């Protein structure tokens, strides 16, 4: 990696090592592959009698959740604990008036408590990046930041665990057709998935959604857009469903969830249009009967629970790589 690149990318240190994980966008293919390769031996750790390795012994990992999430927070907590770190969970109310100041004040306070890593979830895009920048500017660049989901921007560990899952079942990225289906507009997961898939060389990434749930200019990310789900699913190897984020919707983007299910819900009948060995993924939590039929969610092609298991290994790999960087 060129020195210039390393200097420009806030996620890489001057030796080109991953020091923060803020976004998949801008990470070179080799770094993504190295994370996936590193995750494989970590997945074995979780099957042992003692599900723990000593890499982060004596390190303090702070889960800073400015937005609720039981699931993601729990998987990060498990991953950090299986690396022997001490984990401190902070659920921070975002309703205070001056959010920018609160965010950096919080970071300063935790840095003063000798934190080693921040896992940050925030409703505002760019919040983890801002914290990482601030830590660098205040002489705390030994504290590593992991983005656990920021606004509509990115959810890099979800994107990575999805790639790990695809590689587990499909091996070669460069032979695949992958469809991402549903509420792309509100989805930071979709953005991370698209960047990861294109970086890893997937030749055809499709996005299937109604026009009202597509961000403008999504084609520029290198995807083929389909408004008709049946047409879009034809011959795909991987179906990645998204959660319909009703809580983020203002106004009438959709007639009703029933209407949405009729057009964009994954049913056995629609799934039959994909390749017979296609896998079905979902980042959870699922809205059964809204974006996915129970017969598919619980069916033989679904790999939704393995995604959760792989997510622990991928998060362990990311944290171990960050904490071990200079």
């Amino acid at each position, binding site marked *: 990696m060129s020195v210039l690149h390393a200097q420009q990318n806030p996620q890489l240190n001057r030796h080109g*090592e991953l020091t923060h994980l803020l976004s998949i966008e801008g990470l070179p293919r080799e770094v993504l592959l190295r994370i996936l390769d*590193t995750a494989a*031996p970590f*997945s*074995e750790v979780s099957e042992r009698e003692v599900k723990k390795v*000593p890499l982060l012994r004596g390190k303090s990992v702070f889960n800073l959740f400015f937005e609720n999430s039981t699931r993601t927070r729990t998987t990060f907590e498990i991953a950090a604990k299986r690396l022997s770190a001490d984990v401190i969970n902070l659920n921070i109310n975002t309703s205070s008036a001056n959010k920018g100041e609160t965010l950096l004040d919080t970071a300063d306070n935790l840095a003063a408590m000798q934190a080693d890593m921040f896992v940050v979830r925030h409703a505002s895009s760019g919040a983890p990046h801002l914290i990482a920048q601030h830590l660098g500017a205040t002489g705390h660049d030994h504290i590593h930041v992991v983005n656990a989901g920021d606004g509509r921007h990115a959810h890099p560990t979800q994107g990575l665990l999805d790639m790990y899952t695809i590689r587990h079942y499909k091996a070669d990225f460069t032979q695949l057709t992958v469809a991402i289906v549903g509420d792309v507009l509100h989805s930071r997961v979709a953005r991370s998935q698209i960047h990861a898939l294109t970086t890893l060389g997937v030749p055809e990434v499709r996005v299937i959604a109604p026009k009202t749930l597509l961000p403008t200019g999504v084609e520029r990310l290198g995807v083929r857009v389909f408004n008709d789900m049946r047409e879009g699913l034809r011959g795909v190897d991987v179906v990645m469903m998204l959660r319909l984020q009703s809580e983020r919707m203002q106004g009438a983007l959709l007639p009703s969830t029933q209407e949405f299910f009729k057009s964009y819900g994954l049913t056995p009948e629609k799934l039959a249009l994909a390749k017979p060995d296609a896998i079905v993924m979902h980042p959870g939590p699922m809205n059964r009967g809204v974006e996915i039929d129970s017969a598919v969610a619980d069916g033989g092609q679904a790999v939704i629970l393995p995604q959760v298991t792989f997510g622990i290994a991928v998060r362990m790999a990311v944290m171990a790589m960050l904490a071990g*960087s200079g």
Partner: protein
Amino acid sequence: MPTSLPDAEALCNALADTLRAHIDPAATALVGIHTGGVWVAERLHAALGLKIPAGSIDVSFYRDDYHQRGLHTNAKTSQIPFEVEGAHIIIVDDVLYTGRTIRAAMNELFDYGRPAKIDLAVLADRGSRELPIAATFCPHSLNLPDAQMLALERAADGRLAFRLVAKEAATESPATPSRAKRGGSGNK
């Protein structure tokens, strides 16, 4: 520099002969340390006709230089296909050096259970120990300057051979060699 390197094939045979006299083939489990130790363990397993499948261990997650050198690239998955609790285990490696790898391997094994007994079998002991660890079975000892590493290699036809490499090249680097804060070794 020694005029001739030990013959790895001959040492493999000698080690197998020694072990044959000391072990119960139905109740002894081998665990090879990646990568050279795994090759030697495979050989010994076949030569001794052991009943318990051989395990393999990659000590990347237990190394004592993680905070200096970062996480090892190309960490392999450890595979222990037998019950560690109460087992007689022989840890197998190619070369015994500082003893730090063996310390890490023992720590890792105890996370699978409490073995009844652990022995250590290596092809060669090159001295320079940094921990109070000794091999139970070792057919060859030699002294090497600190700047040199004794590396085991496996040819396409499966034959094992030793080679001398300069330490800098032998250092299995973390992400970038330039970062090493400590002039480290292969941590054996």
